[in-house]
């Protein structure tokens, strides 16, 4: 793959050809002064990412026994401390962790306990304390609450995800180009949509974003792609990594522009590993390779702006501590969240580790959550993006005064 192949059309067809279900979305707002430089990226791993494989507690005495053949072998795992390591597919993240620019929160969960993907994703994205608590997304409400903001919202993706929906207007973009068309048509449709509350604003923002995308594609720092040799499954995975890295770098290109987005959200599908999830290699390892490539694309693309950036990787819930009967894991509770970025303060794991002792497991089957995911987001939004506590407790995460922001992250 050459640099020219990483065009928008090239990215889309490569991603589609692989069956990669990566959706992108984002929001942009620009505050004045120092806060105007701060950047935040949220990556949602949809389908319930297995925290015990992504950041295996290889030093926990119960880990290997519970996990059987899907346990990540200690000699393959990338060591973080006496208990924790990262999956070998997360080599890029591990490199950042060694520099104090990546940390894990190994036992987090949102407030929902129903183990339903859709319900838990709704709770995560809406920021509500209960399901159907609100119909807008918490990042959208965070934008509204940002100090001295000048809203210029951007959502990246073919469909609009809940986390970004709400009053603050959103534009959207996904890899795949608009072709040459009649120069008159957008104006004619603009007139016909003048009183249309759905299509009018959507068309206007879509056109603005097209112009921005053209600039981002010109400026993006295309990484050196993997060589396309040796077909077969491994070739597919390498190609997928190159695509994911290219998309990360493109999104970074958006963010670095003069009026680019300050807050972006990206979603990555495919984590619902009920069967044959694999260990150091396999199905889950491939998803983690893509995730690592995406994050490295962001890191490289943001370049000098990485020092002002915090990336949060979160999932709707974790998976059962025990391997199930089909070489996979079922819906669980606590999982791992990742924090990355040059703005991060170095430190160990975030939150307490409840251990995997039988008596410590939640309902006898899942990692027990010791930290509310909302507290993690609150910490980043307060200390990095400058939101005040009152807005966080009420507007952004309703009825959450009891959930403390995690301090000392940035």
């Amino acid at each position, binding site marked *: 793959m050459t640099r020219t192949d990483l065009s928008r059309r090239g990215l*889309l067809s490569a991603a*589609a050809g692989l*069956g990669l*279900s990566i*959706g992108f979305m984002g929001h942009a707002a620009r505050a004045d002064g120092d806060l105007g430089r701060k950047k935040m990226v949220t990556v949602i791993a949809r389908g319930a990412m297995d925290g015990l494989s992504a950041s295996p507690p290889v030093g926990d005495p119960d880990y290997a026994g519970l996990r059987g*053949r899907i346990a990540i072998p200690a000699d393959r795992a990338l060591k973080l401390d006496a208990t924790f390591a990262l999956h070998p597919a997360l080599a890029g993240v591990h490199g950042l962790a060694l520099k104090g620019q990546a940390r894990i929160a190994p036992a987090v969960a949102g407030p929902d306990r*129903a*183990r*339903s*993907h*859709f319900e838990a994703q709704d709770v995560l994205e809406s920021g509500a304390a209960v399901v159907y608590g609100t119909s807008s997304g918490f990042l959208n409400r965070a934008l509204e609450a940002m100090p001295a903001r000048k809203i210029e919202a951007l959502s990246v*993706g*073919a*469909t*609009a995800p809940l986390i970004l*929906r709400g009053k603050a207007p*959103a*534009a*959207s973009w*996904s890899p*795949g180009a*608009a*072709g040459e*068309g*009649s120069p*008159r*048509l*957008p104006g*004619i*449709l603009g*007139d*016909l949509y003048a009183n*249309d509350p*759905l*299509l009018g*604003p*959507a*068309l*206007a*923002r*879509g*056109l603005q*974003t*097209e112009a921005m995308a053209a600039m981002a594609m010109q400026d993006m720092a295309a990484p050196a792609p993997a060589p396309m040799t040796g*077909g*077969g*499954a491994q070739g*597919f995975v390498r190609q997928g990594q190159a695509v994911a890295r290219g998309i990360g770098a493109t999104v970074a290109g958006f963010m670095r522009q003069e009026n680019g987005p300050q807050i972006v959200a990206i979603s990555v*599908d495919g984590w*619902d590993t*009920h*069967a*044959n999830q694999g260990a150091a290699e396999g199905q889950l390892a491939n998803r983690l390779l893509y995730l690592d490539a995406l994050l490295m694309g962001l890191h490289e693309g943001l370049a000098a702006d990485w020092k002002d950036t915090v990336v949060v990787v979160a999932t709707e819930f974790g998976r059962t501590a025990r391997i*199930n*009967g*089909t*070489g*996979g894991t*079922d*819906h669980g509770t606590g999982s791992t969240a990742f924090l990355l970025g040059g703005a991060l303060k170095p430190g160990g794991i975030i939150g307490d580790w409840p251990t995997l002792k039988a008596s410590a497991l939640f309902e006898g089957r899942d990692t027990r959550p010791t930290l509310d995911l909302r507290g993690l987001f609150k910490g980043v939004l307060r200390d990095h993006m400058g939101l005040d506590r009152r807005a966080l407790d009420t507007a952004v995460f309703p009825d959450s005064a009891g959930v403390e922001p995690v301090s000392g992250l940035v």
Partner: protein
Amino acid sequence: MPLPSPMSSNDVSAAIAVTRFGLGARPGELARVARDPRGWLLDQIRPAGADQPQVGGESSAARIQAFRAYQTERREMRRGEAGEDAPGRDPVQIAARMLREGTAVDFLARARLAATTHAGFRERWALFWANHFTVSAVKLVTATVAGPFEQEAIRPRVFGRFEDLLIASTMHPAMLLYLDQAQSVGPGSRAAAMLSRRPRPNGGGGLNENLAREILELHTVGVDGGYSQADVTEFARALTGWSVGGLREAEDRQGRFVFRVATHEPGARKVMGRTYRDGEAMQAGGILKDLAAHPATARHLARKIARHFVADDPPPALVSRLEAAWTASGGDLAAVARALVEAPEAWDPTPAKFKTPYEFLISSWRAIGGQPGAIEHLAPPLNALGQRPFSAPSPKGWDETAATWAAPDAVIKRMTWAEDFSAVVAGELDPNTIARDALGARLSEPVRAAVARAESRQEALSILLMSPEFQRR
């Protein structure tokens, strides 16, 4: 929207019947339907179910066998010639071609049926149920059977009893594979006892709760239907034994539903307060029947049907009407369809539903009186608009709300597609006639005028397809 005065109320009803209940108007269709719009809809409800797309007739069993044969070959190749490239025999390429061709043929046939049918309501009703019981091609193992699943399990039963539809979809090999049921083993079963003595290195040997959970959460009572984690696990135990015949079994079992008594968890089960004696294969069937008859299922489905046909946030009176029809008829889907047609709330002249990408494309083909001739007419725009053929992102199926599909990026892509499409098909067509034929009484004066004033046929058709009223139904 102000209606032009010469239009009668039957013209308005015809436009609603064909565009909201159906899949959009073909040239001349509105005039025919205007004679009796409600009768036109009611006549489409029939015991034989939905129409079948014209495909080669390859069954899901044949597709599953072919896929498994390929998997075996791939394993053998890996053992035999590890590290070597065998041009033209790369199993990943063979698989990719199988998937492309199989799903492409099925999807194109389905789209051609939708673009040409005179019974658009019947087809939309079938698509609703196919989406409700989603089998997505995103999993390799189910990539070739999403089409046959719909033809075999769904289409024949969409105007029958919900219970029969639920049981047929649950027992279908495609669903058993898609939601990991085929390999689930009861922990107290004979097979589990054997496996514990001789563990297999590569999986197998335990319970999988995926299908049980999604039946409760998505197919029947719904997420707030009052079940617990214990109910999910108990239901999953009852379902053990429901599986798909493998390559080494008798030919009439291969790729078909089989009951494996050896993997079935023995004993009575308790699900949502009811106890089910161990009747082996029939135990899960008893649970499915009770779930089909559960009041929460009637409520869940009444709301979902109203949301699909009428509004993202449907009128409560309509939901109650459908729920009452469901309950009174014991889940007779023909009775529910009739209740929908007869509900005054369903005929509100304001079009509240934003078309999904598939609905947008199909209605565009219908508007010009054409049909897609190749998968290349469908797959690239649907991929770009986020609705890849047969590939709903999860067992929940495609989302149906405007908030999901009307993102700014998607509106730009619809516009781009409308221009490309118009450039190819506009030819000698008269866009003014097409606008009247496609929207009838729903065509607004500003759009009529903009179409008439356009500087080319291509531009005129693009304006029509992108107009606020054509984007909605």
